[in-house]
């Protein structure tokens, strides 16, 4: 394949002391210089690679930088390789471009040298402009989404609680699920205490400890080896980051998963209604509801009618989160999202034991980070 091109560069003049400048501000100046040098317009940047920001933004670094810069990259990452980070960014950018995941990747590193040690270990916009108003944590953010969905579409508390109950039912076939042996009805969900209205406790994933890993190999390796299982194949992928804080989200009724899923399905040549498994990220009932709508399975605002019209169990017409999802299985921090990949692999290779979907050949997997900010969609197929 043709080599990727390094088409623009930018640098700041080195100084010993930056007198209270922010890392985000310096990243912005550096990014602008490189993009101007390239001749591209700001909005032609569709990939973003950044470094760690110790003491400022412990997690969600690309989303924080993208929000600050007003970018909506289709591919982004933190590259954390110390002094090798810069060159490490370049081949990763080229790999993303060759994979069709981006066309122009901004690789940017900048640091301040402030004389005063920051008082807070976390200094970034969400810490400065959301947390002081009593809005710490993700519950508030997803409560804002549910409230807006109910107001715009007339959806009810019962509609959302039904999703949690259905996932809990699927979890009864997964002995590894934290809620195995503990089914819950829609009424049970509604009877759980309000945490941040209109979100009830049982509409929120239960945090657990756990782990989840996947080995990815080349087609040649998979062919050559005597594998213990049939492999699952990556047929399509999509990614999008639009913001960090819910206060800055472009929409409260549709998220970055919509374009990410569209790209993944297009790459795979699969229609959403022909999928054998929907393995959809479900940190909150409202996230699952919006993802069903963004996937194009039904019109915006119609998730509850769609769910009532279909059977979401492993023997149904639209198997969804057959492991119980994270609402049924528990959320092992970041591994909880990988669990949606693992379940898809198990279904596609036919090792899902007591919950095997008959003849599963395609699966849609979604991941969601921060406040409906960071989105990844995969289409996997049976090998």
């Amino acid at each position: 394949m043709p080599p990727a091109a390094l088409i623009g560069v930018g640098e700041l003049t080195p100084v010993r002391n930056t007198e209270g400048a922010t890392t985000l501000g310096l990243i912005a100046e550096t990014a602008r210089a490189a993009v101007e040098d390239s001749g591209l317009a700001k909005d032609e940047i569709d990939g973003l690679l950044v470094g760690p920001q110790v003491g400022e933004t412990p997690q969600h670094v690309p989303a924080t930088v993208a929000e600050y810069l007003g970018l909506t990259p289709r591919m982004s990452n933190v590259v954390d390789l110390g002094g090798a980070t810069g060159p490490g960014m370049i081949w990763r950018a080229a790999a993303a471009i060759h994979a069709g995941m981006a066309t122009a990747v901004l690789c940017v590193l900048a640091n301040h040298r402030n004389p005063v040690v920051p008082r807070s270990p976390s200094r970034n916009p969400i810490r400065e402009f959301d947390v002081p108003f009593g809005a710490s944590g993700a519950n508030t953010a997803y409560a804002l989404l549910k409230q807006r969905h109910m107001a715009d579409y007339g959806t009810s508390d019962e509609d959302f609680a039904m999703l949690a109950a259905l996932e809990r039912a699927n979890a009864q076939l997964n002995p590894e699920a934290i809620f195995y042996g503990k089914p819950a009805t829609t009424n049970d969900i509604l009877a759980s205490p309000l945490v941040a209205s209109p979100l009830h406790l049982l509409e929120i994933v239960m945090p657990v400890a756990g782990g989840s890993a996947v080995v990815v190999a080349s087609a040649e390796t998979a062919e050559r080896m005597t594998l213990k299982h049939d492999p699952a194949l990556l047929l399509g992928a999509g990614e999008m980051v639009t913001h960090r804080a819910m206060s800055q989200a472009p929409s409260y009724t549709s998220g970055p998963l919509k374009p990410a899923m569209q790209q993944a399905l297009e790459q795979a040549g699969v229609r959403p209604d022909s999928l054998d498994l929907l393995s959809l990220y479900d940190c909150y009932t409202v996230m699952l509801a919006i993802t069903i709508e963004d996937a194009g399975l039904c019109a915006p605002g119609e998730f509850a009618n769609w769910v009532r019209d279909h059977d979401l169990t492993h023997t149904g017409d639209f198997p969804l989160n057959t492991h119980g999802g994270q609402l049924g299985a528990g959320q092992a921090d970041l591994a909880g999202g990988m669990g949606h990949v693992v379940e898809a692999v198990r279904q596609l290779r036919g090792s899902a034991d007591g919950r095997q979907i008959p003849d599963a050949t395609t699966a849609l997997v979604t991941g969601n980070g921060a406040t409906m900010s960071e989105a990844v969609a995969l289409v996997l197929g049976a090998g």
Partner: protein
Amino acid sequence: MQVDPGTLTVPAPVPTSESAPFWRSCAEERFILQHCDSCGRWIFYPRALCPFCWSSELTWLDASGTGVVRSFSVIHKPGHPAWTAAAPYTVAVITLTEGPTMLTTLIDIAPDAVSIGMPVEIAFTPVGEFTLPFFRPQSAQKSKQEVPR
């Protein structure tokens, strides 16, 4: 809110060189926003450059301090323990009249009376060492009396 917010010891803003003018002006009960001289759009939160056009030609201007509720939540179990004494309280995202959105604490209204689209206005409130831009329902009478700055 169950308590006087002035008595709360909660995480305070940590201003940066970019945001310091905003917090200084809040302390004087003036609501200012950055305005981009290049593309004409208003910006919140404060930045070194405009997120729409990347211009650095930003000017702090007086803003209306009014807007409408984009969404809201009544917090029963706060994410930070320091807010527990205040619960239940209402957090809202406001679409400011100038365009940007910002998160705030909504006061002077019963939680079950809040609705999306409701007009609100700034209600500067001392919390610890800072004066925070809380919001409250916009009273028709009040908005008539208001004199443009």
